[in-house]
């Protein structure tokens, strides 16, 4: 393991910022640390970089315990949300800065600066000052400065958050390319699930200072371990149901029943479960009735035209509202419709995971 975080706990005053967080990064891996603002992501980054001494827990870099080492003795480079290029140094001097701290020959430094400026396609701006660069160029130079000393781990702390959508996607592609080319072990911290899913090999999803799930983006999206992960990784409809029959699974949603033939439940009949299903997986059934998929009936309460699709809100007799995505012209509000619920796309949570 290149980076191991184990049992990390930290408090600010009486407020717990991070509680017993453990995860690790294999060599060359890019891992997304994802969670809403205030979930403790930045505390973790600061603890790894050494700008904060955690109340408990250990940080290991290439097997060495660095928890009590100052930042300059860890090989962990950080790129912050706001640019931190040195305004009194040129682009080349900024990139060389981290190299000069190490005992490297001048000619080798020049060479490494050149290589890293080529990596970010800015070799021609070597003598420019940061103030002369555009926002996206500054970000790329920061990446080059962070990468040039060949750190054990690259920490990207919300590097895209302050940027426009088009610049953001361009830089996201650049980060992906550079990470593949250099193979640097990278922890990518973000609150944006689209950025995380597009870049990361694996995701560590955080909520309120604790880990809510760790897995590949696809596994977390398709089989979220907790309701929080289900709704944080994309839009999700939650419907409360009661187990009628554990196997084959039959659920009661108010007066209606939902039969999920290939599923079984480890909860007994009568237990409450929360069912999550994504709006894109729901469809409005045609009226021919030859369909055998499980369905729920309700009335269209509201339609939003999103340009590329319609969001159809359907209120069930239980007063819960589910959103169904639809490309074709939707039925008007008030219409009674049947919502097809594909059994394989339904994730169920018992009461024990519902709070997480």
């Amino acid at each position, binding site marked *: 393991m290149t980076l191991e975080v184990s049992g990390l706990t930290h408090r600010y005053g009486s407020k717990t910022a991070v509680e017993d967080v453990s995860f690790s990064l294999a060599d060359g891996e890019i891992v997304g640390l994802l969670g809403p603002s205030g979930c403790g992501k930045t505390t973790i980054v600061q603890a790894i970089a050494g*700008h904060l001494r955690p109340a408990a827990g250990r940080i290991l870099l290439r097997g060495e315990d660095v928890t009590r080492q100052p930042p*300059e003795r860890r090989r*962990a*480079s950080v790129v*912050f949300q706001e640019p931190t290029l040195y*305004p009194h140094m040129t682009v080349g001097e900024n990139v060389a*800065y*981290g190299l000069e*701290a190490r005992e490297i020959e001048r000619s080798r430094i020049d060479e490494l600066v050149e290589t890293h400026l080529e990596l970010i396609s800015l070799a021609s701006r070597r003598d420019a000052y940061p103030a002369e660069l555009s926002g996206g160029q500054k970000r790329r130079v920061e990446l080059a400065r962070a990468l040039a*000393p060949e750190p054990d781990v690259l920490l990207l702390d919300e590097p895209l958050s302050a940027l426009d959508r088009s610049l953001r996607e361009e830089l996201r592609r650049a980060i992906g390319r550079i990470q593949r080319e250099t193979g640097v072990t990278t922890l990518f911290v973000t609150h944006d699930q689209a950025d995380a899913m597009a870049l990361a090999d694996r995701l560590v999803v955080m909520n309120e200072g604790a880990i809510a799930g760790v897995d590949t983006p696809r596994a977390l999206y398709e089989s979220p371990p907790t309701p929080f992960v289900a709704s944080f990784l994309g839009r999700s409809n939650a419907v409360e149901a009661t187990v009628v029959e554990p196997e084959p699974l039959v659920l009661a949603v108010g007066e209606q029943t939902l039969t999920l033939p290939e599923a079984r439940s480890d909860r007994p009949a009568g237990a409450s479960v929360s069912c999550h299903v994504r709006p894109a997986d729901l469809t409005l059934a045609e009226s021919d009735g030859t369909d055998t998929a499980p369905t729920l009936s309700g009335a269209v309460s509201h339609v939003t035209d999103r340009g590329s699709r319609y969001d159809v809100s359907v209120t069930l007799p239980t007063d819960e509202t589910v959103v169904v995505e639809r490309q074709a012209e939707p039925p008007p509000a008030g219409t009674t419709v049947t919502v097809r619920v594909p059994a394989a796309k339904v994730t169920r949570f018992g009461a024990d995971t519902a709070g997480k």
Partner: protein
Amino acid sequence: MRAFDPRRLRTPTRFVPALLGGVLLVHFVVPFAAFLSQTGTSNVVAGLSAPPARSAIRNSLLTAPVATLFSTLFGVPLAYALARTSVRGKRLIEGVVVLPLVVPPVVGGAMLLTAVGRFTPLGRAALAAGLPLTDSLAGVILAQTFVAGPFVVVTARAGFGAVDERLERASRSLGYGPLATFWNVSLPLARGAIVAGVVLTFARAVGEFGATMMVAYNPRTIPTRIWVEFIAGGIDAIVPLALALLAITVVVVTTVQRLGHLPTVVDG
């Protein structure tokens, strides 16, 4: 009120602050203009060649730079510590730094006398060691540092406070220790404010009068010499020395501002 064209109503409201402020500006500008127009009537070169005047100029040019150097050498690290640490008792230390700014210079001088005067233990020991702390150049330096030192601390502190701490953190993560980071990042980035503070400290030190009068009436600096000549010969007698002091101040202030790329001290 509705009789006015509302579009014309806007213009006067803009001029209200300018008009009021203009009164103060006039009060600042007129004395300068009057003084500079006076200089033609007086033989400046002759006035400055007199031995007492030359000795006063030499004393001022010896003491003020030393006081500024001391203030900077000890004040800039203090400013950095105040900007970056949050130790218990920091408020008290900040109060101590500001006290000499608000204490009247004559009182400051009296205070210094009670600390290092000829009849205090400290003053007696220094005198015995051949370094009198009153009525000496050392006394002048002590007085100037006491009165002028806070300027560089307060200004540099504001400068360090404006340096984004993340730039320092990035430097640490790039392999530099705290001292190297201070030298490579914090100091160059706060340079403008520090230069402004140094300029203010020098200007205050070279013109220091009240505390110097108390601690070291002799040897004379330019300000104390001006006072002696004013008593003896009135306003006309002091024009050469006053002009010399003004010239030293203006030359140093503008030179350091040029070097520091500071348009005016206000921006520091």
